[in-house]
């Protein structure tokens, strides 16, 4: 089996998680504010950048 592209995989999983949070907000199950958006967005971008950096190193 082909080895997956780790950064794309990590970014995809992070986006799916973020999308689920947005779906819950749209459904009224939770109330998203900038106070929750900022850390979630930073975490998603941070983990993707981390994966990108590590993939170049190894």
């Amino acid at each position, binding site marked *: 089996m082909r080895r997956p592209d*780790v950064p794309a995989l990590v970014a995809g999983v992070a*986006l799916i998680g973020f999308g689920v949070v947005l779906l819950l907000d749209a459904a009224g199950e939770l109330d998203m504010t900038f106070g929750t*958006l900022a850390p979630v967005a930073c975490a998603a971008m941070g983990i993707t950048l981390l994966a990108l950096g590590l993939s170049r190193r190894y």
Partner: protein
Amino acid sequence: MEPEDPTQPLPQPKRLTRSRSDRVLAGVCGGLARHLGIDPVIVRVLAVVLLLAGGVSLIAYAAMLVLVPEEGEAEAAPATARDSSPGRVVLLVIALLVAAPLLIGGGLIAASIVLPLAFLALTGLVTWWLVSGEPFAGSAGDVLRRSALGLLVLFGSALMFAAGFMGAGLGGGTAAAAGVVAAGAVLVVGAFVGRVRWVILPAMSLALGVGVVAAAGLSLEGGWGERDYRPASAAALQDRYELAGGEMVLDLRRADLPRGDTPLELDLGMGQATLVVPKGVCVASKAEVGAGAVDVFGDTTAGVNVDWDDQPEGRRRVVVDADVGFGALLVRHNRRDLDHPRRDRGDDGPFGDYRGPGNTGCADA
């Protein structure tokens, strides 16, 4: 003195190459410093100074990027083949053409054209390096292709942000969120199938656009522009006023409001909503502002995710329920544009000092 041995090859001049080991961008400064035998930091500082002094170093950097081979590349490829590369020649001609005005005068005008273009090209290169991992260096054609691809990814990302922002703002929050999940799924599947790293940035931009709308509670329904409502009676008053973006003024001074509560909903996406009430009418207000300010008769609160709730009692009340995405909600007894047309507009702006009477109609006023 010994005679020269004609069978011995002549010593080759030291070739200028771009450094592979000492590089910030493409190893130009590092290679030049090694060639001249000086500290690379000096070359880099000089390059920055010249960049700020008109951009000559940018042109020189671009020319060296195109013309000077990388360390190791010089030995591997014959000079004739490298020099005859059509891409390098074209880039050199372009560099000389744009450099000429800088070098012979009129530098500011030329720099105002050249620098943004160079900045764009560099932005494209950096973007493509980030999303693909491909290096800056290479043939002229490769550099141009990477820069163009990087700009294309940036443009696509801006479009995706706008699509997410508008889609969610126009009531398609669920569909837009589903789109984010789908984009994530594409990346997950694509990670096993092919090269999809370039999708990461546009997909994240889409998510960010949807996220900003969700966090601000933004609604882009109701049109754009300026709205000036002056209902002549209480019967003409609508329950709800909405505007996607712009300035909305609702002047109730001629409405002859009845005793008791008059409920009112204000829904503004981006901009400023001003509610003007007659003196003697109490205003009870509840407002959520994604980012901006609420200013009720000079009582102001501002910031991100502002949650305002002020419910004073009064015999004749306007009960406002406002939702503002980005912008400000103002409640006043007068209007700057009608009542004080010549007055400095900065006097009682959303973040200035309000000089009129307070919430006069309330029981504890």
